[in-house]
C-alpha cells in the first residue's frame, strides 16, 4: 500500500504541476484583466503541436523545441491581446465570447493542419525510466516537476522583485493609480497575456510526449486549472499553486480507492463542496455580499 500511495503521489504531483502552469496563466489574466480566458486549453494544445512540429521538422532537440514553442506562444499571446482583447477591453461579455470563439478557430485550425488523429512524440525522456525502490517512473515525470517548480519560482521572483513585475501587481490592484504613476496599461496587458500563453504552451510541450498530442488535449487540464483557481480563491496566485498541486494529488490518490474513471468526479465534487462551504476559496478574501 505504501508504495502504491507513493506512486500516486508522484503521478499526482506531476499532473498537478501541469495544472499549476495552466492555473497560473489564467489567474494572471484574471488578476490583471478580470476576465477568464477560456481559450487557455487550446493554447496548451497549440504548445503540444508546436513542440511536435519543431522537434520533428526543425531542431531534433526536445529542449530546443520547447523553448521555440514557448516563444511562439508568447508571441501569439501578444497578438491575441492586441488584436482581440484590447478592442474589447471594456466589454467583459464580448471578451468571453471571443475566447470561446478562439477555441473553435484554433481547434479546427489544428485539425485542418494536422488532421484529427493523435500524434506521438516519444522523446528520450519518456523512454528512459527512473527506478525508485520497486517502482519505476519515466524521466519525463521528473522533468515536468522540475521544470514547473523552476518556472513557478522564476515567476514569483519576477513578480516580487522586478520593476515590471511590481508594475503588473500594481496594475491589477489599481489600474487608475497605475496610469497616474506612469505605467502604460497596454504594455502590462500585453505582458500578462504573453506570460500566461507561454506558460500554457510550456504545459502542452511538457505533457505532449507523455500522453498523446490531440486537438482536445487541453480541455481537461483547463477544467482542472479552473477548478484549482476557484478552490484556491479567484485571483490568488498561492491559491492557484496549492489548488493545482492539490487537485493533481487528490485525483491520483483517489484511484487507489475508486475506479480511475471516477477521478474527475472527485475533483468536481470537491469543487462543488468548496463552492458551498467556502465560496471565496482557500486563499481568497471574503467579499461582502458573498456568503
Amino acid at each position, binding site marked *: 500500500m505504501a508504495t502504491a500511495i507513493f506512486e500516486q503521489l508522484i503521478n499526482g504531483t506531476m499532473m498537478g504541476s501541469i495544472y499549476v502552469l495552466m492555473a497560473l496563466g489564467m489567474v494572471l489574466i484574471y488578476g490583471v484583466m478580470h476576465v477568464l480566458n477560456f481559450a487557455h486549453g487550446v493554447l496548451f494544445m497549440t504548445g503540444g503541436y508546436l513542440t511536435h512540429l519543431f522537434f520533428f521538422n526543425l531542431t531534433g532537440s526536445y529542449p530546443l523545441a520547447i523553448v521555440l514553442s514557448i516563444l511562439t506562444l508568447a508571441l501569439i499571446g501578444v497578438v491575441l491581446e492586441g488584436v482581440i482583447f484590447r478592442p474589447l477591453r471594456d466589454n467583459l461579455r464580448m471578451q468571453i465570447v471571443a475566447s470561446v470563439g478562439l477555441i473553435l478557430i484554433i481547434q479546427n485550425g489544428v485539425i485542418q493542419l494536422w488532421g484529427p488523429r493523435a500524434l506521438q512524440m516519444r522523446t528520450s525522456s519518456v523512454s528512459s525510466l527512473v527506478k525508485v525502490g520497486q517502482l519505476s517512473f519515466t524521466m519525463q515525470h521528473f522533468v515536468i516537476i522540475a521544470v514547473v517548480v523552476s518556472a513557478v519560482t522564476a515567476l514569483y521572483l519576477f513578480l516580487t522583485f522586478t*520593476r515590471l513585475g*511590481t*508594475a503588473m*501587481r*500594481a496594475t491589477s*490592484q*489599481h489600474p*487608475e*493609480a*497605475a*496610469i*497616474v*504613476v*506612469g*505605467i*502604460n*496599461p497596454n504594455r502590462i496587458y500585453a505582458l500578462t497575456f504573453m506570460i500566461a500563453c507561454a506558460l500554457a504552451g510550456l504545459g502542452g510541450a511538457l505533457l505532449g510526449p507523455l500522453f498523446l498530442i490531440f486537438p482536445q488535449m487541453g480541455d481537461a487540464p483547463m477544467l482542472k486549472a479552473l477548478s484549482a483557481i476557484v478552490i484556491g480563491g479567484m485571483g490568488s496566485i498561492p491559491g492557484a499553486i496549492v489548488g493545482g498541486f492539490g487537485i493533481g494529488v487528490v485525483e491520483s490518490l483517489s484511484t487507489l480507492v475508486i475506479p480511475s474513471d471516477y477521478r474527475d468526479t472527485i475533483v468536481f465534487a470537491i469543487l462543488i463542496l468548496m463552492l458551498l462551504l467556502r465560496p471565496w476559496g482557500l486563499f481568497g478574501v471574503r467579499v461582502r455580499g458573498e456568503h
Partner: protein
Amino acid sequence: MLKVRGLKGGYGGRLIVDGVDLDVAAGEIVTVIGQNGAGKSTILKSIFNMAPVREGVVTLDDQDIFPVSSYQMLTVGLAYIPQHHSVFPKLTITENLRMGGYLLSDAKLLQERVAKVEDMFPILKERRKEYAASLSGGEQRMLEIARTLIMDPKVVMLDEPSIGLAPKMVDLVFSTARLLAEAGKGILMVEQNVRRALLASDRGYVLELGQVRITDEAQALIADERVSRLYMGVRS
C-alpha cells in the same frame, strides 16, 4: 507655469467642463471650489488626458501637453492625485514609492529619490515594509503625495486631498502642500472643504455648472459674500 485655456471635457453626451481658463504659477497654491457634481474632478481629468471627451489648450512651461498620454504626464512634469484612494493596497509602502518612480530608468537615482522622500515623511519610513492598506486614510493621502514627488513634478494636482480626513490630518496635508509650493512647485487643488482650502491657498476659482464664475485671491474669496453664502453655510 500651467496654463489652461478654453478647456472642455466630459464623458460623451453633455459637456461637464465647458470652457475653463486657469493658471497656476510656480510656488502658488490654486484651489478650484464648487458644489458636488460641478465638474471639479472632471477639470483635473481633462487636464490629465483622462476624460474621454476633451478639447482646449493645456501648456506647461509653454510646452503643449494637451496630447500627452496620461501615463506620460509625469515625464513632462505634471502629477495628479485622484479623488479616491490611489495607493496600491497590497504593495508595501516602499514598493508604492518605487512605483512612483516607475518612469525612472536609473536605479541609483530612484534609490536616492525614495530615500529623500522617506526623510520628508517619517511615518512612511517607519512602516516601509507594511502594506499600504494598513495605513490610515490620512497616511494613505501622504503616501500618494510622497509617491508623486519621486518624479519631482513641476505641478501637482490634488483632487479633494482633505476629504474624509481627521482635522489634524487635514492640517498636515495642507501644510505639506504649502511646503511643496515653497519648494517652487505649482499646486492645483480641487476642494469641497471651502474655508479650510481657501485659507491654505493663494488664489481660487469658483466653478459652477462647468464654468468659472468668480476668480480672485483666496483672501478675497473668503470675504466674498457670494462664496460664504453658497459654500460656507453662512446666511446673509
